[in-house]
C-alpha cells in the first residue's frame, strides 16, 4: 500500500501535433493510503486516462507519478504492484477460476500454500468457491467480472486497486452487495480503492472522497456532503444530485441580494466588489420548502406536476421562465394550482462564470 501523488500531470494522445489535444489537463492530486475514492464524471472526461497513468499503462506527457514519494513515472506496470479492474470482464479463458485468481500471485512467485489460502479466502468473499475448478470461460458475465475483481483482491500488498466502472455488467442486487463488500475489504485490509464511475449514486454510496472530472480537468474534490451542498461549479451542481441542482441566471441587486426574474432572493454570499456579470443562482431541490403564504425568499409559482416517488414527492413548478424542482416529504400536502416555494438563503449558491463565489 502506498500514498499516490500525481504532480502536475497532463496527458495528450497526440503530443507531437501542432495543436495537441489534452485528454487530461495539468493537475495535481494526492490519494491517501487506505482511502476510498471515486472518480466521477461523464464519458470521455479523462477518468480512464488517469487510472491508466497510475497503473503505468499510459506514460503521462507531463508531470510525475509518485508512490510513497518515489518517482514511478517511468516504472513499468508489472513493477508498480497495482491492481486494475476494467469495465468489461477480462479473464484468462484457458484457465480455471482457481488458476485465474492464483495468476497474480504465481507471477510474483508466492508459495503454493499461501496462494491456496488466499485464493480460497477471496473466492469465499466473492461467492466463487463453488466454481473454483470450472473453466473461467464458461461462466456468466458477472461471474467473470467477479474473477477480474478477485485477481485484484488476492494481493494484499498492492499500492491501490483501480476499478474502471467495474460493476457495469453486474446485476443491481449483486452490485449493491459488492459495493458493500469492497467497503469491508477497504476497512479490513486498508487497501486504497479508486473507483471510476459515471453513476453519482455509485460514487456517493461507495467513496469517502469524490473527485469530479469534466473535459480533462478535476472540477471538484471532496466528500459527498461537500459536493452535494457546496458544488464548486455549476457542472458539479448539475451532475451531482437527482434531480440536478436548480440553476437560474440572476443579477446582483446589492451585497446580499439577487434578482431572479421578478423575485428578490437574499443570499449569504457577499456580492460586494465581485465580478457580477454572468451570475447564476443554484439551489438543491431538497432545500426548497413549501410555504403557506408569501414571505422573504418565496416564489409564487404554478404547479406543473407532482410526482410521487414513494419516499418523497417531486414538485415541478413554473414562474414565467423559471422552472423549479422541489423535493418534499411524501406526507407534505401540495396545492394543485399555485404554490409558495421558499429558497433558504443559507442553501443558495451563487456562481459567477459558472464558478462558486
Amino acid at each position: 500500500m502506498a500514498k499516490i501523488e500525481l504532480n502536475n500531470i497532463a496527458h495528450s494522445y497526440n503530443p507531437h501535433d501542432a495543436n495537441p489535444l489534452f485528454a487530461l489537463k495539468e493537475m495535481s492530486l494526492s490519494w491517501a493510503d487506505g482511502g476510498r475514492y471515486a472518480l466521477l464524471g461523464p464519458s470521455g472526461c479523462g477518468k480512464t486516462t488517469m487510472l491508466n497513468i497510475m497503473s503505468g499503462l499510459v506514460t503521462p506527457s507531463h508531470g510525475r507519478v509518485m508512490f510513497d514519494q518515489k518517482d514511478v513515472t517511468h516504472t513499468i506496470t508489472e513493477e508498480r504492484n497495482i491492481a486494475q479492474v476494467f469495465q468489461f470482464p477480462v479473464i484468462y479463458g484457458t484457465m480455471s477460476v482457481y488458476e485465474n485468481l492464483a495468476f497474480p500471485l504465481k507471477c510474483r512467485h508466492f508459495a503454493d500454500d499461501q496462494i491456496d489460502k488466499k485464493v480460497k479466502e477471496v473466492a469465499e468473499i466473492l461467492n466463487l468457491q463453488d466454481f473454483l475448478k470450472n473453466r473461467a470461460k464458461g461462466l456468466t458475465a458477472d461471474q467473470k467480472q467477479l474473477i477480474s475483481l478477485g485477481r485484484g483482491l488476492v494481493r494484499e500488498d498492492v499500492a491501490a486497486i483501480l476499478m474502471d466502472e467495474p460493476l457495469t455488467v453486474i446485476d443491481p442486487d449483486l452490485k449493491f452487495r459488492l459495493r458493500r463488500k469492497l467497503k469491508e475489504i477497504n476497512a479490513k485490509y486498508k487497501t486504497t480503492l479508486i473507483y471510476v464511475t459515471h453513476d453519482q449514486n455509485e460514487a456517493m454510496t461507495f467513496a469517502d472522497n469524490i473527485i469530479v472530472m469534466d473535459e480533462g480537468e478535476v472540477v471538484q474534490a471532496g466528500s459527498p456532503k461537500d459536493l452535494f451542498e457546496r458544488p464548486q461549479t455549476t457542472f458539479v451542481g448539475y451532475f451531482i444530485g437527482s434531480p440536478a441542482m436548480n440553476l437560474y441566471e440572476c443579477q446582483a441587486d446589492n451585497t446580499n441580494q439577487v434578482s431572479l426574474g421578478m423575485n428578490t432572493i437574499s443570499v449569504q454570499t457577499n456580492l460586494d466588489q465581485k465580478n457580477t456579470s454572468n451570475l447564476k443562482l443554484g439551489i438543491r431541490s431538497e432545500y426548497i420548502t413549501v410555504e403557506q403564504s408569501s414571505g422573504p425568499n418565496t416564489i409564487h409559482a404554478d404547479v406543473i406536476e407532482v410526482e410521487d416517488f414513494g419516499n418523497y414527492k417531486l414538485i415541478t413548478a413554473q414562474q414565467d421562465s423559471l422552472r423549479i424542482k422541489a423535493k418534499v416529504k411524501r406526507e407534505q400536502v401540495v396545492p394543485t394550482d399555485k404554490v409558495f416555494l421558499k429558497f433558504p438563503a443559507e442553501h443558495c449558491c451563487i456562481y459567477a462564470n459558472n464558478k462558486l463565489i
Partner: protein
Amino acid sequence: MPKLYTFIKYFCVILWSCFVIAPFLWAISTSFKDFNSVTGGATYIPWLQFEPTLDGWSVLFKPGSQGGINIIGPYFNSIFVTFTASFISIALGTLSAYALSRYTFKAGFVQNNDITFFFISQRIMPPVVLAIPFFLFLSTLGLLDSLAGLILVYIVLLMPIAVWIMVDFFNRVPKEIDETALIDGCNPFQAFFKVVLPNSIPGMIVAGLFCIIFGWIDFFFAFILTFTNVQLLPVKIVALNSSITPWWSLSAAALVSVAPLIVVAFVVERFLSKGNLSGALK
C-alpha cells in the same frame, strides 16, 4: 411452417453433401476400374457393373522399374516439407502479427496496415514472378533440389497467410487482456506467452490449416526447384500422365493425396466450433 423449414433445411444439406461427396465416390469407384471399365461408358456398382481391380493403386507403390511411380518417398517429403514450413510460418507469423496488432510502426507514410499488406502482397503476385528470384536464391545457397530449400521457399509463401489471419485475430482480442497480464505481474513476453498465446490457439489453428492446404497443393515451386534428389507428391502424380491418361491411377493418387488434409480437418474441427472461437477471451 416449421416442418416446411425443416424439410428445406435437410434438403439443402443433403444436396450439398451429395455435391461434396460425389467426386470422392466417383474417384473411389474409378480407382478400382481398369481401362475398359473407364472408357466403356459410365458404371457405378462394383462386381455388378464392373470387375474391381487394384491395378490403379498398385501403380502408386510399385518402383519405376516395374512400371510404377512409388509415391511413398515423395509422399513423406510432402508431409515433411508442408508441416515443417507451416509450423515455422505459424510461429514466426504469430509473433509478427502480434507486434503488428499491438505496437505502432511508422516509417514515413508506411504504417502497420501497409506492412500487413506488404506481407499479403507476396501472395497476390503471380507465382511465376517469384520463380526466377527463388531459383537464383536457392542456387546461391546451394539449396536447389533439397528439402531445406523447399521449406525455405514455402515459409516465404505461407508466412503471409499466417500473418494476415493472425493480425485480424489479434485485432479482435481486446488489448485489456495483455494489460491485465501486465498488471498481474507479467512482463510483455510473459503476457504474450502465458496469456495471449494460449487464448490464440483457435486463430493459430485456422492459420495453420490454410498454410497446410496451400503448402500441400503447391505444384509450381515443387516442380521448378527440384529435379531428381527430392520430389514432392504433386510433381510425382503428374508424372503418371502419359499418352493415355490413366484415370484409375490418377483417382487413386488423388484420394491418397487428399487423405492428410481430411485427417487434419477432422482433428482441428473441434477447435473450429463456434464455442471455441467466440468468447475465447472475454
